[in-house]
């Protein structure tokens, strides 16, 4: 987009070097379980992005499932036991 170029000259912000970007992307790849072991020249940008999105979605699902598990746990916990009192006071 040509408008972006003209904006860049007036913004006065320092440019990001290619090396910085490469470093950021390699850090990102280290976090992704599917592709961290593959050498960098075999993984495309779109693959990195795809794996990142899949990983974030799976983490969101895990948080949701764990919230549900904890909520059900509190509903079914035996109200009389001492341990239950400990858990109750800890969580809610």
């Amino acid at each position: 987009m040509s408008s972006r170029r003209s904006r860049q000259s007036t913004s006065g912000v320092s440019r990001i070097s290619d090396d910085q970007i490469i470093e950021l992307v390699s850090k990102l790849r280290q976090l992704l379980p599917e592709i961290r072991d593959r050498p960098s020249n075999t993984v495309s940008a779109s693959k990195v992005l795809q794996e990142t999105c899949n990983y974030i979605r799976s983490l969101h699902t895990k948080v949701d499932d764990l919230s549900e598990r904890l909520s059900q746990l509190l509903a079914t916990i035996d109200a009389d036991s001492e341990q239950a009192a400990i858990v109750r006071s800890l969580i809610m």
Partner: protein
Amino acid sequence: MRPPSLLKQEFLKKWIMGLQRCSSTKKNMNILERKKAIKLSADVAMASSRNGTTCWSRALIANASKDGNDKHLVEQILGPESERLIVKKVSIGALVCNKRIRSKKILKRSCGIRRTRKCVPQVALASSIAKWLVRKRTQVLKSLIPGGEFMNEVCLIKETLDYIISLRAQVDVMRSLASASEQVNHS
């Protein structure tokens, strides 16, 4: 970067405090309400442990506070820090970093995609498909990161890194608490 154990400890502390504040104001929640409170306080605790230093954490708290009912809950969870962390009357776009960068080509270059010198039809098609894929997947990533739709590429990658680390800490702590509670329950 802080060690993960410190991050987890801080998250756990804030989460538990938030949960206790929630339950003290509203007794007898049903399962769905409780699940929502658990999830919301986990997300808000995760975001507040960043102390307003990252875009996603500010955007997460801002989004959570949009709805009237939820806003009250968020203020409960954050407690005394809510004044500082809930940004009022500011558009989320303004919260996000404003650095301008050249183009999406930089992202592709860093992943070792070879550039073609000659514009052979099949190769041109392959490279335009690659560009389209990167553009499409960047859009998806922006929709997953809180506040992502306002970020440029570099900001997006930095925020993604921090967000993934925080999410992992959140999942680990929640899982440990769930297993511990289940063991207590069965014994």
